[in-house]
């Protein structure tokens, strides 16, 4: 089995470079600067993954893909951190299921399409994310936003980012990509806090609280999935 990683980053190779160089991956590590795979495969957050069999047929649609429990989940949050403390409390509520997910990958690697985790084409399509007209329109708005951002018309880009957020509020990829542009200081790595800002109505903490941190990822459930 081959692992392929894809950075969904409007900032392109330069945004992804520090992480890839530190990881020194032996697998293909690609850059999707235009977020084409969001649209083609239905990614709405990271990490997300799909599984492809030897015939390049999807046997699992896009889903959350954690392989390790985040140490932030088990940390004791010190008092007095203000909004950062609130954010860490929300992070602790986020649900993932890395043990079951890794077991499922191993089962598929061993048994191939006989694995109970490998779905039929009809199941893959049926279990892929819904795409109502407003989500498709959000994808178009997000693509315009990114294009304009990369080409320097940032005021216009922000308006399209806002429209994408409004049309598909459950898509964290659209939000986090835009928020990080609003809160990252020049010359610094991408800001992961994505706090209150004067560009967008939303920010990571307030939007996650509103959605419910437990809903942040579509958690892999081996009994359901």
């Amino acid at each position, binding site marked *: 089995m081959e692992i*392929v990683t*894809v950075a969904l980053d409007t900032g392109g190779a330069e945004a992804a470079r520090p992480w890839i160089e530190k990881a020194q991956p032996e697998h293909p590590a*690609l850059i999707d600067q235009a977020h084409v795979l969001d649209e083609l495969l239905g990614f709405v957050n990271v990490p*997300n993954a799909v599984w492809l069999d030897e015939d390049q047929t999807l046997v699992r649609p896009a889903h959350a893909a954690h392989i390790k429990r985040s140490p932030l989940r088990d940390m004791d949050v010190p008092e007095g951190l203000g909004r950062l403390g609130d954010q860490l409390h929300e992070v602790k509520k986020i649900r993932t299921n890395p043990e079951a997910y890794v077991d499922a990958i191993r089962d598929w690697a061993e048994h191939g399409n006989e694995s109970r985790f490998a779905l039929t084409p009809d199941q893959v399509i049926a279990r892929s994310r819904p795409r109502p007209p407003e989500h498709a329109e959000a994808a178009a708005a997000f693509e315009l936003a990114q294009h304009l951002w990369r080409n320097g018309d940032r005021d216009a880009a922000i308006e399209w980012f806002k429209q994408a957020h409004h049309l598909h509020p459950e898509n964290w990829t659209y939000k986090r990509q835009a*928020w990080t542009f609003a809160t990252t200081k020049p010359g610094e790595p991408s800001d992961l806090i994505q706090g209150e800002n004067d560009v967008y109505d939303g920010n990571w903490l307030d939007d996650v609280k509103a959605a419910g941190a437990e809903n942040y990822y579509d958690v892999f459930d081996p009994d359901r999935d």
Partner: protein
Amino acid sequence: MILDSLAVDAGAFATRTGWAIKPEGACRGEVCVPLPSEVRNADGSLDVGVLAQRLGMPLLHDNANSLWALGPSTVTGKALTTAEAPSVTLPDLDGDPFDLATLRGQKVLLVAWASW
């Protein structure tokens, strides 16, 4: 798909959206949507307005920049129309293109991440 006019080359449309133009219509995987003859412009290009209407693709316009964005199809109401992997070629850190199809014959775990 970003466009600077409402006419698109069939090959470019297929590469970006996965919808191939065939005699029976626009096809992706096992799904084919019939297209009227007026989808073809006189110069052989495709009329984006007709494609958008038939495939349920939103078409947004940025007036100031004279650009359009054609969104994904909604004909099935799902993110995936087919279980066939899309044709994807993306660059690595050095800018060298990598075609996902070169991994045919192996299982692939395709993982999306981000710096943000």
